[in-house]
């Protein structure tokens, strides 16, 4: 009898042990499989968001007015309609702001944009010493209040040779060519060119003149350094538009500002129409280098919500490639940044 009892206990013990091992293995495997499925689900959602972003890019590429970007373009209608499908699309023009890496001293002073106690000379020296920055914060927080920095500035725009600080252009030249001496000579060349300007009648390098001005380094500098208008009048902050119109030599009447700000939500202007609206000073001054109708850098954010996994956002930053006269009909965008936010 005692033998039979021991056998039962032994078998029960073995079964219990096996059960514990099986259960723990099952729980572990269940966790592993869940983790694998979760990752697969996230990958699928990421791919779906990328497909949505590609649709947005298709609409940019097939814009019926490719040289003017405004809120009446088809892509905005598409973004609005996507909400019905549970997808949020947010488009932001991130280049129609002053370039914190290149804004000229006179514009800084005119807009009264610097922190109290900081001078535009100090900012110029800081930029010269530390080079071109990708992060506005914390790199420029010593010079600008955070609110001003985020409202008026960006690091995402091209360097228009006519409106950039000459030391910033020297820095860019050095970054692109690796030759500090040539970069210094280039800066002096620009300063010499500007010496021929008269008050209210600046000498300017137009797109057609750019290739000859940049010379042998054109291929390394263009299109980062170009002569295209930096801001899109349809999206730029009203305050910047106002500062540019009230600048000493620009002097554009206030009613023009009101007309543009009032009409841009539901109207699109071509560059020719903008010239007519602003008047003679548009072409005679730097205004036509600051203000245009094209957006160069877009931020596209696409968010999908899911009950089980929460929301997932894809953030793309794309850049439109400026065309030189030889390839005028080609519209091309490039993806600069991709990030998923959960």
């Amino acid at each position: 009898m005692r033998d039979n009892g021991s056998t039962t206990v032994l078998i029960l013990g073995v079964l219990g042990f096996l059960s514990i091992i099986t259960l723990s293995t099952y729980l572990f495997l269940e966790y592993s499989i869940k983790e694998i499925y979760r990752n697969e689900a996230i990958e699928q959602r990421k791919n779906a968001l990328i497909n949505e972003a590609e649709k947005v890019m298709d609409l940019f590429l097939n814009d019926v007015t490719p040289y003017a970007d405004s809120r009446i373009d088809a892509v905005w209608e598409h973004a609005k309609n996507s909400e019905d499908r549970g997808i949020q699309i947010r488009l932001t023009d991130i280049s129609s702001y002053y370039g914190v890496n290149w804004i000229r001293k006179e514009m800084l002073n005119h807009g009264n944009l610097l922190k109290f106690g900081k001078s535009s000379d100090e900012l110029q020296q800081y930029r010269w010493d530390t080079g071109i920055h990708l992060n506005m914060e914390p790199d420029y927080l010593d010079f600008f209040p955070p609110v001003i920095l985020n409202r008026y500035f960006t690091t995402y725009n091209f360097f228009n040779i006519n409106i950039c600080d000459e030391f910033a252009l020297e820095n860019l030249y050095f970054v692109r060519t690796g030759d500090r001496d040539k970069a210094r000579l280039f800066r002096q060349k620009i300063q010499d060119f500007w010496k021929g300007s008269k008050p209210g009648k600046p000498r300017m390098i137009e797109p057609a003149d750019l290739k000859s001005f940049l010379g042998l380094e054109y291929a390394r500098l263009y299109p980062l350094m170009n002569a295209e208008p930096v801001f899109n009048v349809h999206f730029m902050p009203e305050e910047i538009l106002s500062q540019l119109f009230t600048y000493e030599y620009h002097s554009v009447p206030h009613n023009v500002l009101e007309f543009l700000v009032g009409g841009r939500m539901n109207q699109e202007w071509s560059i020719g129409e903008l010239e007519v609206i602003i008047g003679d000073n548009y072409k005679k001054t730097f205004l036509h280098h600051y203000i245009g109708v094209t957006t160069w850098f877009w931020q596209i954010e696409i968010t999908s919500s899911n009950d089980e996994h929460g929301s997932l956002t894809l953030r793309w930053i794309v850049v439109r490639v400026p065309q030189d006269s030889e390839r005028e009909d080609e519209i091309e965008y490039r993806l600069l940044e991709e990030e998923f936010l959960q």
Partner: protein
Amino acid sequence: MSVRKRERCGSPPNNGGFAYIEMMVALTIVSLVGVIIWQGMANTNTLLHKIVFHSSATVRLIQMEKSMRRFIGKVRYPFWVNDLGIEARDGEMKIPFYEGRSDTFLIVRYDEEQLIIGIRQGDTDEMNQTEYFGPFSNVKIELAENEDGEVIGVDFLMYTENRLSEPVKITARFGSNPFWVEKTS
């Protein structure tokens, strides 16, 4: 007619002996069952070990992939840059522009069966935020390129311990890339 019960020849029956045989048979059966169970447990244990090994390796790979993508994704090349400035020597890859800063480097290294990723500031040798992954019998670290031959991130080709399974390739992309790179002479 009465039948006389025939007496059995030899020694009288022994009930106790039968009990012994019975017990021995039972013990033999229990032993056999025990051996079979033991064998089964051993096999099960090996199988479970394999399953757990592969599952945990898969989960570790997924977690490692996430971690590596997070690290590499924080390499943000400004769009104006013309030189990626990546240095690869002594089994170490040094990538600038971690979080968009030219003086902050992401270090990727394979050392003593471990894949090591960390951050280095300026010219110092000290690494911060260091993470270790492995063990791997070998890891190949290469620059990942797109179809146009432009560098877009880092490829990791990892061979598991004792090369029990196929190598795993993970391509981790930089958070942002230069607009275009024009080779300097």
